[in-house]
């Protein structure tokens, strides 16, 4: 073909219009608001020069009501590329074109890429930056959303789905992210809500800004809807890349492996010093996690929400594990409604994608109080219990300190399916905490005692020593071994290796009925 002839020239001109002109306009509009363009985000997300775009030149559908601008792409860029060398699909909404609003062609593009991802068993990432349904498109726009949500659910637990909110996501549009596995948000320039501040003002006469109502901080701290937030878009996309490196491409595969120089038999004496001898003194469980995993790298999710439970991903000897740990320095590590839900969801992702679970336990129980009871701690706590019972991935628990009553059972105890259960010498495993137990068992003696406070302290110490120690549980087989904290890493790596080929038959049913 003559590269100067009319055929090739037309090809080049069309590319110029889209890739250069439209692109420049997009950059102007987005950069002025401190945001990146849809294309720039894709470039940051994927490995260099691996992105292939699909349906670049589609035009918006004609509408019965109002006008639509004739611009290529209809406000969303779709395609596939490699992330850290692995195939992944993406759709990235373009706010510079009709506010990134969803018209029927826009929706069809997203549906196309969702189908491709599901067909090929590859992860899909959605970068949301959209004003929502395109009013001019009418019901076709709503139908478009419905098709997207349907596919989110069909793919749920089959391929990893990640939503990255980098702009508005309002009204019905928030459902797609809500159905996906992870939601990332960028501080200050993204927001999610079902009903916006204008309607809130009209109906309830409450004044609130976009950021206060549904910004990244609100969703990270208060609602727990966003698991990861970052201050800027580059770091957000880097975070997505980091997260994906822990996940397999689909539910048939095992998670990927990153060779680590961190020796698998590393002895860590610092671990003996972190848990204080005084059972009422708090400590930071993240210090323990960092000392056990490869290279001190722990990817924490939902960091600002339900902080009494810490969840996240890490590697042991190169292999991905999901970590769940009680955090004694927040609320004394008790489980409450929010942390039960956070934990339950996390356990279920890991189970869906064959990621083994490590539980680090130091929990005195569930948070008491009218507030918790009336808001349903019973059913929410049950969610965490259900998730652990249901999970068939390798599950290992290490009891660091307290483990009382119902919380002992829930946190992956042996009889709910813990494959290996270890305990540190500081572990206290009992039906109730020592002070509570003494109050019940010695009620009469306490009433008659001269110095009840001293009596309680003495007997609590005795209880702690004789009944709540881990050796009794060890002797009865509820704990597999009491271990020296310094060798925890070595023990865990060997234990997980032994469980590599674990498989459990799941009962045949459509699906269980987890208390929602």
């Amino acid at each position, binding site marked *: 073909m003559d590269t100067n002839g009319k055929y090739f020239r037309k090809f080049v001109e069309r590319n110029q219009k889209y890739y250069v002109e439209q692109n420049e306009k997009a950059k102007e509009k987005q950069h*002025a608001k*401190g*945001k*990146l363009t849809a294309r720039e985000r894709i470039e940051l997300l994927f490995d*260099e020069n691996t992105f292939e775009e699909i349906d670049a030149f589609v035009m918006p559908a004609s509408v019965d009501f109002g006008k639509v601008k004739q611009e290529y792409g209809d406000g969303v860029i779709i395609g596939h590329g490699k992330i850290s060398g692995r195939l992944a699909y993406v759709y990235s909404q373009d706010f510079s074109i009709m506010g990134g609003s969803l018209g029927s062609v826009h929706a069809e593009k997203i549906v196309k890429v969702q189908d491709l991802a599901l067909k090929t068993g590859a992860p899909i990432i959605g970068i949301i930056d959209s004003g929502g349904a395109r009013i001019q498109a009418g019901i076709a726009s709503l139908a478009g959303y419905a098709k997207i949500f349907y596919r989110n659910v069909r793919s749920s637990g089959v391929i990893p789905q990640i939503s990255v909110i980098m702009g508005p996501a309002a009204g019905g549009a928030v459902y797609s992210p809500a159905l996906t596995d992870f939601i990332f948000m960028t501080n200050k320039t993204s927001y999610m809500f079902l009903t916006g501040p204008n309607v809130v003002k009209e109906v309830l006469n409450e004044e609130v800004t976009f950021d206060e109502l549904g910004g990244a901080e609100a969703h990270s701290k208060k609602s727990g809807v966003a698991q990861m937030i*970052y*201050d800027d878009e*580059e*770091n957000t996309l880097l975070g997505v890349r980091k997260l994906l490196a822990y996940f397999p491409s689909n539910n048939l595969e095992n998670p990927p492996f990153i060779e680590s120089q961190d020796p698998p038999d590393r002895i860590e004496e610092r671990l003996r010093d972190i848990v204080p001898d005084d059972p009422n003194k708090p400590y930071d469980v993240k210090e323990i996690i960092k000392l056990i995993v490869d290279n001190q790298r722990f990817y924490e999710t939902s960091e600002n929400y339900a902080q009494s439970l810490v969840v996240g991903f890490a590697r042991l000897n190169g292999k991905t594990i999901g970590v769940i740990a009680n955090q004694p320095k927040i609320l004394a590590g008790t489980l409450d409604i929010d942390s039960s839900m956070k934990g339950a969801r996390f356990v279920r992702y890991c189970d869906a994608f064959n990621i083994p679970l490590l539980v680090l336990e130091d929990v005195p129980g569930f948070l008491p109080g009218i507030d918790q009871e009336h808001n349903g701690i019973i059913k929410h706590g049950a969610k965490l219990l259900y998730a652990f019972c249901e999970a068939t991935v390798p599950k290992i628990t290490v009891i660091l300190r307290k483990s009382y009553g119902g919380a002992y059972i829930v946190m992956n105890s042996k009889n709910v399916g813990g494959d290996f259960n270890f305990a540190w010498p500081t572990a206290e495993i009992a039906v109730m905490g020592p002070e509570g137990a003494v109050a019940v068992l010695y009620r009469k003696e306490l009433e008659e005692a001269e110095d009840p406070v001293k009596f309680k302290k003495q007997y609590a110490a005795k209880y702690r020593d004789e009944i709540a120690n881990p050796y009794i549980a060890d002797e009865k087989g509820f704990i597999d071994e009491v271990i020296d904290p310094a060798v925890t890493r070595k023990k865990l790596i060997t234990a997980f290796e032994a469980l590599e080929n674990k498989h459990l038959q799941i009962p045949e049913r459509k699906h269980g009925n987890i208390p929602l």
Partner: protein
Amino acid sequence: MKMKFSKGEKNGAMKYIAYGSGKKKHEITFHQEKGIKIDKHQADIEIVKDGGLFFLKWNNKRYTAEIVDKNQNKYTLLVNGVSYDYSIETPTSYKRKKYLEKNEPKTKIQEVSAPMPGKIIEVLAEENESIKEGDPLFILEAMKMQNEIISHINGKVTKINVKPNESVEKGAILVEIE
């Protein structure tokens, strides 16, 4: 020390802007061949890392540095015992930060947090009360001393989060002032 960059690299150099409290900023450029530049000047730095401590020599002065805290790209460091807070930005994310700063809404809710863990002995302010800079808001007992927590701005108390005899953690938000 071999430096190899891939993403974000321009002309074989990686440029970062360390943005600190009080709008301080320093430009640090890492170049494949030309080495390190600080604020556009070539910098010859000797670094020795020993456990968690960095021993640095620059312009014939010695420094001891330690990374105390790190969250994503936000760092708290100690250099010679003095702490510094910086977030590491790329030129793009720095521009974004500046843009957002300019457009920050004017009425911000200021929070006063507990400087250390302790017990609230007395609550001296009331909701909806107008207060001035220097007005005492709480008495916090910590480390066997009674400390007055004072306001550093003028404004109106919108929300008091604590009651007398309540124990608080360091950083707990005690009151919101508009």
